[in-house]
C-alpha cells in the first residue's frame, strides 16, 4: 500500500525528472575493488578483535556445548539463564535454562557468515533479534568455511529471498557521547564473541 498526500508522489517524481533533465547522465562505475586478504580467517580475527570483539577458534560442534558451558561459568557475573536463537542447533546449546532475552545473561546466535575486511558477523533476523541484542554477552557461532574475504562478496551471496532484516555486528555496543570517552555495552551487548567452527 502506498499513500501520497495530494499527489506528492507525482509532484516529487516530476520535479526530480525536471531537475535532472538537462544534466549529463553518468554511468555507474561498477564495483569497488577492495584488497583481498590472503588469509580471510586471520584477517577477520584481526579486524573483529581490533574493534573490541573477541574470537574463539577451533571449537568443533562436538566440543562446543562443553566449551560454552565452561565459558559461561567462568563469567564474572553468574549466568543463570541464556537466550538461544531460533536457528541454533541442539548441539550448540549450553546446559543452562533458556530464558527470555531481556533476562538472559548471554545470547547464543548462529551467523549466516562472517566478513574478513570489516570484521563483521552477518546475522539474519530469523535468528531472533532479541537474542542478538538484549543480553549483555552475545556469543555467535560462525559455521565452518563461512568467512568471506570481502563485504561485497558476502552481500552478493546473500540469499535471493532476504530475511526481513540482516544485521552486521562488528563490535560490542559502543558510545563516545559522554565526554568523548568510549564506553561499551550502552544498548546492545557489551561483549561479542565469535566462535569459529
Amino acid at each position, binding site marked *: 500500500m*502506498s*499513500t501520497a498526500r495530494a499527489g*506528492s508522489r507525482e509532484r516529487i*517524481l516530476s520535479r526530480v525528472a525536471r531537475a535532472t533533465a538537462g544534466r549529463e547522465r553518468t554511468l555507474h562505475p561498477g564495483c*569497488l575493488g577492495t584488497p583481498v586478504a590472503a588469509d580471510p580467517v586471520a584477517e577477520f580475527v584481526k579486524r573483529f578483535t581490533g574493534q573490541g570483539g573477541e574470537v574463539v577458534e577451533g571449537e568443533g560442534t562436538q566440543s562446543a556445548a562443553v566449551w560454552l558451558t565452561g565459558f559461561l561459568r567462568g563469567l564474572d557475573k553468574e549466568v543463570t539463564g541464556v537466550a538461544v536463537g531460533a536457528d541454533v542447533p541442539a548441539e550448540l546449546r549450553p546446559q543452562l535454562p533458556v530464558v527470555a532475552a531481556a533476562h538472559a545473561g548471554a545470547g547464543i546466535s548462529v551467523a549466516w557468515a562472517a566478513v574478513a575486511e570489516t570484521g563483521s558477523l552477518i546475522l539474519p*533476523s530469523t535468528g*531472533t533479534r*532479541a537474542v542478538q541484542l538484549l543480553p549483555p554477552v552475545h556469543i555467535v557461532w560462525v559455521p565452518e568455511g563461512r568467512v568471506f574475504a570481502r563485504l561485497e562478496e558476502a552481500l552478493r551471496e546473500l540469499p535471493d529471498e532476504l*530475511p526481513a532484516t540482516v544485521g552486521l555486528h562488528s563490535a560490542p555496543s559502543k558510545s563516545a557521547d559522554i565526554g568523548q570517552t568510549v564506553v561499551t555495552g550502552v544498548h546492545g551487548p557489551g561483549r561479542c564473541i565469535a566462535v569459529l567452527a
Partner: protein
Amino acid sequence: MRTRINEYTARATQAIRSEPEVRESVTGATLAFDRKRRDAYTEVDADEWRRWAEAVKNHTLTHLDDYLTQAEERLEANGVQVHWAADAAEARDIVTTIADDGLVATAVKGKSMLTEEIDLNPALEAVGIEVLETDLGEYILQLLGEPPSHILGPAIHKSLQQVRDLFADRLGSAPDGDPDALAEAARHVLRDAFIHADMGITGGNFLVAETGTVALIENEGNIRLTTSLPRVHVALVGIEKLLPRMTDLAGFLQLTARAATGQPIGCFVSLIQGPATQPGDDGPEEVHVVLVDNGRTDVLAHPHAWEALRCLRCGACLNACPVYRQTGGHAYGYVYSGPIGSVLDPGLLGLHEAMPLPFASSLCGACFDACPVRIPIPELLLEWRREAQDQGLTPWKERAALAGLASVATRPGLYKLAGRIGARLGGTGAARALPMLGEWARERALPKPSRRTFRELWREGIE
C-alpha cells in the same frame, strides 16, 4: 524548522567570547575524529574509494526518478508501506497518522538529522505521543532541550562534567559517576523504553533500489533495537539517499565509517527489507518508509549545488573544519552546520534564509580533502557567494570596496599612487582609509606597511 542562521556572526562571536568550554570540547572531539579519519584513509586507497563513491552517487542522482520508482516497487513487494512527503508538514502529518492508526502511545527514536530538519518530535508530542531519543548523545540533548551541535556526535559540545550534573539531576545518578556509570544510568531508562515502545522511528543512511533495503549505520545498538522491538517501524529517508545496488553498500558502509569515525565499519549495520514475516523473526509487524523531499529537488535542480546531495552525513567535513571547531554547530542556527551546512542550507532553505553561511569560511579546503564523496565545498561556497553578490545580499560597503579595488588594480598608475599613499600613512592611516578594518583591528594589531614599497626598492636597485 525555524532557523537562526541569519544571526550566525553574532552567535558565533558570543559563543567564542562567553562559552570557552564549548570551544574546548568541540575542538578536542573534532580533532580526535579527524585524526582517526586521516589514519583510516591512509590504510586504504582512499583516493580511489572516494572517486568511486562520487561516481556512484552522481550516477544515482542523474537517474534518481528511475531509482526512486524502483525502490518503491521493491519496498512494496517486501510488504513495506511507502509514503511520499513533499515538505516537512507532510512528513510530520504522515508520521502522526501512522502513529494514530497504529494506536501508538510511545515512540523510541534513533538519531536522524532528517527528523530534526522536519521538527518531528514536537509534532508527535502535540498529539500526545511520548517520544524518547535513544542515541546517547541525542538523549542528553533531549533532556537539555537543545538541538544537536554535530550531525554525527550531537553532544560533542558537552563535557563529562556537564553530563554528570545533568544525569545526577534528572536520573539520580552519582554526582561523580564515571562515563560507564552514566551510560548505565541512561541504559536503564532507555532499555525499558525499547521494550515498551509501540513505534520505532529512524532515518536511513541508504536506500537500495534493487532490493528495497534501508541501511542504517550506528555504534550503540540503539537503532537495531529501535527497528526490532516496537510493533511499528517508520524510516524517514531523504530522496537523495538512494543507491542502485546491494553490492554498492559494501563500499559505502566502509567509506562512511572510515570518514566518520575512522572505523572499518559501524559496530552495527541494519539492512532492513520489511516487516517480520518469517518464522523465528521477532521484528516489527509494520514497516513504513517515508520518502522526503523538503527542498531536495530544489537543490537537485541547481546547476552546481546539486553535488551537495551526494552527502552521506558522515560529519568528516565538520571535524576537519577549523571554523566549525571554534563554535560547534549551534551558532549556525540550523540542523546542518559546518561546511556541508554552509553549502546545503542555501539550497534547501533559499539563499536569503541561509545568509551569511556561504561567507562563514576561510576557504581553507580541509573539508574537501575529508569528504568521502568529494563534494567541492569550497567551490560551492564561492558559487553561493557569487549568487549572494548578484542578488545584492552583501553589504554595499563591501561591494563598493571590491569594485574600487578592481578599478585601481586595472590602472597601474593609480595603483602605484595608492600604494605610496598607504606606505606614507602607516598602519593606522591605512586603517582609517579602509573603514571595514575597524573590527579587524579590535582583535589584532594593525599591520605596518613597509616603509618603502617593493616597487620603490626595485627602482632603487636590489643588491
